[in-house]
């Protein structure tokens, strides 16, 4: 069973490694969106530190959405997705493997870039550290829930925009708890409560999202 999961993971990672341009776009998007805010609202350090956590979190959700519309689309195009769904292995594992691969390809680089942007936004080291933990807990949620949206909108016209419309409302708790954790540590009230809720939300998404996404995938491929 986990051999299938590993095979899906390895396949997606290999494909991503051979098309480096694809996943770098999402990372540059993340950097650009975050860099637009100081230009838009002004460069005062106090204000940047105040809005920094929220801006970085919003930019992270948008960057993940940008890449999610292609989670199943490429495999759907060349027909390999149908074969994987028709195989005797459970579709849930296929979805879980693809979501995990998406997180490794798009989520981990965000974690590496975020501290640099945190410095640009004048965040303290403590706040950057909590931002890292909140992104570590939060970005898998984005990939898991995004899998549901990607499966639902598979092959639809205007699928990318529709995906945004469907999935952004579901991202809200992750955004609130993730940015709230960093705000908490900056305000001196501590980040534990928000991080615990974020962790709980991650467990909940991990338990529910792959099943719904697998059902949605079967509906879309019928």
């Amino acid at each position: 069973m986990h051999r299938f999961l590993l095979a899906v993971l390895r396949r997606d990672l290999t494909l991503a490694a051979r098309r480096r341009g694809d996943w770098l776009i999402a990372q540059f998007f993340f950097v650009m969106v975050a860099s637009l805010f100081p230009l838009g609202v002004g460069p005062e350090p106090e204000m940047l530190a105040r809005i920094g956590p929220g801006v970085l979190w919003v930019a992270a959700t948008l960057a993940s959405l940008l890449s999610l519309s292609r989670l199943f689309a490429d495999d759907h195009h060349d027909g390999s997705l149908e074969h994987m769904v028709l195989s005797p292995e459970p579709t849930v594992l296929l979805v879980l493997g693809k979501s995990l691969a998406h997180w490794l390809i798009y989520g981990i680089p965000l974690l590496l870039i975020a501290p640099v942007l945190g410095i640009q936004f004048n965040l303290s080291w403590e706040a950057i550290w909590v931002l890292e933990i909140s992104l570590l807990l939060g970005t898998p949620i984005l990939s898991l829930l995004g899998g549901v949206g990607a499966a639902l909108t598979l092959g639809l016209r205007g699928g990318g925009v529709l995906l945004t419309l469907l999935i952004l409302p579901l991202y809200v708790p992750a955004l609130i708890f993730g940015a709230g954790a960093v705000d908490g540590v900056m305000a001196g009230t501590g980040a534990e409560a928000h991080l615990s809720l974020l962790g709980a939300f991650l467990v909940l998404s991990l338990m529910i999202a792959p099943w719904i996404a697998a059902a949605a995938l079967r509906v879309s491929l019928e």
Partner: protein
Amino acid sequence: MNLYTYASPANFYVLAGKLIPWFAWGTGIFTVWGLYISFFLAPTDFQQSEAYRIIFIHVPAAWMSMFIYLVMAFWGAIGLAFNTRLSFMMARALAPTGAIFTFIALWTGAWWGKPMWGAWWVWDARLTSELILLFLYVGIIALWAAIDDIRRGDRAGSLLTLIGAINVPIIYFSVKWWNTLHQGASVSLTKAPSMAATMLQGMLVMAIAAWLYTITVALIRVRRIILERERQTEWVKALLEKET
């Protein structure tokens, strides 16, 4: 009499046609009665003066916005589990009404907020989650609109409704979980309500009116959906011939 016969769209079409006038009359009577209580019988609030009367619209609309979503999720789950066509049609028939009530709840809330809080909008937990509920409704309707294949659209929309259903308890309990500006519920089953009896009566009558209205328009809409989807069948052709 076997209730399951009404799971067939052809039978339900006839039943809905018979029920609609009853619910429509009920809606009219309860709306007039409720508005009469709200505007003429209910006393002026000593703190909020006349502006509080918005709650007679606001509270039933907010209740219905959440309740309709749960009913949609229920029909979606039934449809996915038992593969019944009519359940999906009911879910689709309810969605626009739910979105409208969510919008009314937000709009009247803003009108109430301006004189009471001094702000049209605050990023309060309950307001925010009601806004997210509106986004969910819009997302579901947009997904249905984007999928031409009826069977796929039904299922995809129901799956999205189910995953979004987690949001509804968050709205309801948000006032308790976060200590926020929006006041707590004044009506509760377990303790005496913290408002005058006439006000409560007006609100409940308006809630029943909103309920009956929802049933009426949902039945009208589901009849249209049934006709549209079953237009190839014999019974629809026979029906059309009889009517023309």
